[in-house]
C-alpha cells in the first residue's frame, strides 16, 4: 500500500498512480485525468509531451531534535507533470508542509533531489519562478494593495522577470476597486486574493500554496476555490496545494497525494477525473461524493499506517 514510499525500485513513478475510475490505465505518462482540449491552457503538456514539472527523488528530511527513526520525510518520490494541479493531504505531522517548504527552497533536504522544471529550488527562486501563498496573506501592511501586488517586480530586479501589470492582476481577482486601500482595510478573503494575485504576477513555473484558504469561512473559501481554478485555467502553471480539506482537494486537483505520518511519506496517489472547467454543477455531481469517499478512505488507512504520535494522550 505504500506507494511513493519506494523501497529500492521506484514503484510509484513507474507504475504510477491509482486512478479512481477503475477503467483507467495506470501509467501516468500517457494518462491525463481529464481530457479537455482547448480549455484555454496554451499548450497541454499532459499526455503527449511530458515535461516533469516537479520531480522529487529519494527526499529525506530530519527535523533537528526529532527522533532519528522518525524523519519528517522519508525517501519521498514524487513526479508532478507540468501544469497539473496537485494537492498534498494527510494527517498532521505527515510532512506535507515540510515538503512544500523544500520545494520552495526555504528548507534544505538531508538526502534526495528536487527539481522544478529541471532546476533546483534555489535556481528557480533566483529566476523568480516560484510563487508562494501561505496560510496568512503575508502582505506588507504599510503598502497599498497595488504596491503589494507589484512587490515581486521591485525585489530581485537582477532576475529581469517582468510581472503582469498590477491592475490586471487585481482585476483578475476582482479587487481593482481596492487597489489603493491598505491591507488592514480588507477582509481576510480579500487579503488572500491579494496574496494569490501577487504570487501569480510573476507567471511562476510553480505555484506553492500552503493551506491558503484554511483560515477563511466556508463561503469565502468556496468562492476563492472557484476563483483560483479560473486563474489556474488561464495561466497554466503547476500548482502544489497543501490542504486539510478532502473536499477542497477533490474540487481543485488533478491529483491528490495522500501522505502518512511518522515517518512522513507518500501513502497513495489518487487521480481526480472530474471534468474541467469545474463549475458548481460538476462539483455537486454524484461522482464527487465517490471521490471524496475514496480520499477519506485513503486518509484513514494513511492514518493507520503511521505510528502513533508521541504526544497523543492515551485513551
Amino acid at each position, binding site marked *: 500500500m505504500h506507494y511513493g514510499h519506494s523501497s529500492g525500485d521506484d514503484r510509484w513513478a513507474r507504475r504510477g498512480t491509482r486512478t479512481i475510475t477503475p477503467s483507467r490505465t495506470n501509467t501516468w505518462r500517457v494518462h491525463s485525468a481529464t481530457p479537455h482540449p482547448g480549455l484555454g491552457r496554451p499548450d497541454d503538456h499532459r499526455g503527449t509531451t511530458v515535461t516533469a514539472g516537479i520531480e522529487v527523488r529519494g527526499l529525506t528530511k530530519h527535523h533537528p531534535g526529532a527522533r532519528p527513526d522518525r524523519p519528517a520525510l522519508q525517501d519521498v518520490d514524487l513526479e508532478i507533470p507540468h501544469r497539473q494541479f496537485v494537492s498534498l493531504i494527510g494527517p498532521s505531522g505527515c510532512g506535507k508542509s515540510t515538503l512544500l517548504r523544500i520545494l520552495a527552497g526555504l528548507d534544505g533536504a538531508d538526502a534526495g533531489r528536487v527539481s522544478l522544471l529541471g532546476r533546483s529550488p534555489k535556481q528557480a527562486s*533566483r529566476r523568480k519562478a*516560484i510563487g508562494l501563498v501561505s496560510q496568512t496573506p503575508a502582505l506588507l501592511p504599510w503598502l497599498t494593495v497595488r504596491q503589494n501586488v507589484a512587490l515581486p517586480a521591485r525585489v530581485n530586479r537582477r532576475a529581469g522577470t517582468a510581472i503582469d501589470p498590477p491592475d490586471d492582476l487585481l482585476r483578475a481577482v476582482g479587487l481593482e476597486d481596492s487597489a489603493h486601500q491598505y491591507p*488592514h482595510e480588507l*477582509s481576510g478573503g480579500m487579503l488572500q486574493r491579494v496574496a494569490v494575485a501577487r504570487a501569480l504576477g510573476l507567471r511562476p513555473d510553480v505555484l506553492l500554496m500552503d493551506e491558503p484558504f484554511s483560515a477563511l469561512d466556508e463561503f469565502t473559501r468556496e468562492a476563492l476555490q472557484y476563483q483560483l481554478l479560473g486563474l489556474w485555467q488561464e495561466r497554466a502553471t503547476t500548482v502544489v496545494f497543501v490542504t486539510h480539506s478532502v473536499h477542497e482537494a477533490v474540487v481543485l486537483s488533478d491529483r491528490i497525494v495522500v501522505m502518512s505520518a511518522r515517518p512522513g511519506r507518500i501513502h497513495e496517489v489518487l487521480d481526480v477525473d472530474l471534468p474541467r472547467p469545474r463549475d458548481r454543477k460538476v462539483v455537486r455531481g454524484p461522482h464527487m461524493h465517490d471521490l471524496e469517499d475514496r480520499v477519506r478512505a485513503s486518509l484513514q488507512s494513511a492514518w493507520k499506517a503511521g505510528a502513533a504520535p508521541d504526544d497523543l494522550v492515551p485513551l
Partner: protein
Amino acid sequence: MREEAGIVTRVTDGTAEGGDSASAPVPPGTIPPAPGGPAPARGARRRSPAHPFVWLPALVVLVVLGLAWSAVAEAHPYILPRLGEVGAALVGDPLLFLENAWATLSIALVGVGVGAGSAFVLALLMSEIPVVRRAVMPFAVVLNVTPVVAIAPALVVAFGFGMTPKVIVTAIITFFPVLINVTTGLRSVPLPVLHVFRTLDASRWEVLLRLRVPSSLPYTLAALRVVLPLSLVGAVVAEFVAAGSSGGLGTMIRNSASSARLDHVYAGVVCLAAMGVLLLALVTLVERRLLFWHDSRRPTRG
C-alpha cells in the same frame, strides 16, 4: 460579518457568470463598507475633544492642585512661590526663558540625533553581522547601567563647558533604549512574509530595506517616545554639572535656586515641562503619519 457576505456574493457572481472573474462588474458601492462600515459607529462612540466629558476631569484636577499649591504658597512663601509670581516671571522676561530653553532644547535634540542615530545604525549592523552584536552588546549594557550623572563631571573636565559634554551625556542616555528597541524591531518580521521574500531570492539589502526597517518602525518610534523626554533630562543634568556654563534652563534653575529666586526656578521647570510635552506631541504626530498601518493605531473593537 455583513461586509464579508457582500464580498462573497461578488466573487461567486463573478465565477458563476461563465467563470470569468475578470469581467465581474463590481458596483463601486460594495467595497467601501469594509473599511467605512465601522467608522460611523466608532465616531458616535468617541466624543469630540470639545465635549466637557473629555476635558472636565483633567480641569477639575488642575484646579484642585492649583488651590492646594496656593494654600501652601500662602503659608510658606519660602517653599513654594505663588502661582502669580511664576507667571509674572515668565511674562516679565520671556526672552530670557526662550533663550535658555532653546539652549537646552538644542543640546537635547543634538544629543538625541547623535545617540539615537548611532544606536539605529549600530542596530542595523548588529542585525546583519552577528559578530558586531557579540562585540558591542556587552559594552552597551554596561554603558546603560552606569549612572550617566556619574560620568558627567569627568566629561566636563575632558571637554570643557561648551556643548560637547552635554551632548555626550544626552547621547548616552538616549542610546540604549533605541538600540534595544530597533534590534527587536528588525527581528520582528513575520515568517511568512520573510518566506515570500526568500522565494523571490531577495538580497539581504532588499530584505533589510523593504521588510526589516519598515517592520522596526513601530519599535523605533516607541523608543523615541521614551527617549525624547529623556533627552531633556540628560541636557538638564549636564547643565547642572557643568557649573558656570553660559546658558540653558538647567544652569538657570541652578543659579536661581542658589539665590533663592523660587519664581524663576519654577518658571524654568514649567518651560521644561512644556518642552517635554511638545516633544511627545511631535512623536505622536510622526507616529500617526508613519504608523497608520500598525495595529497599535487602530481602535480595539469589541
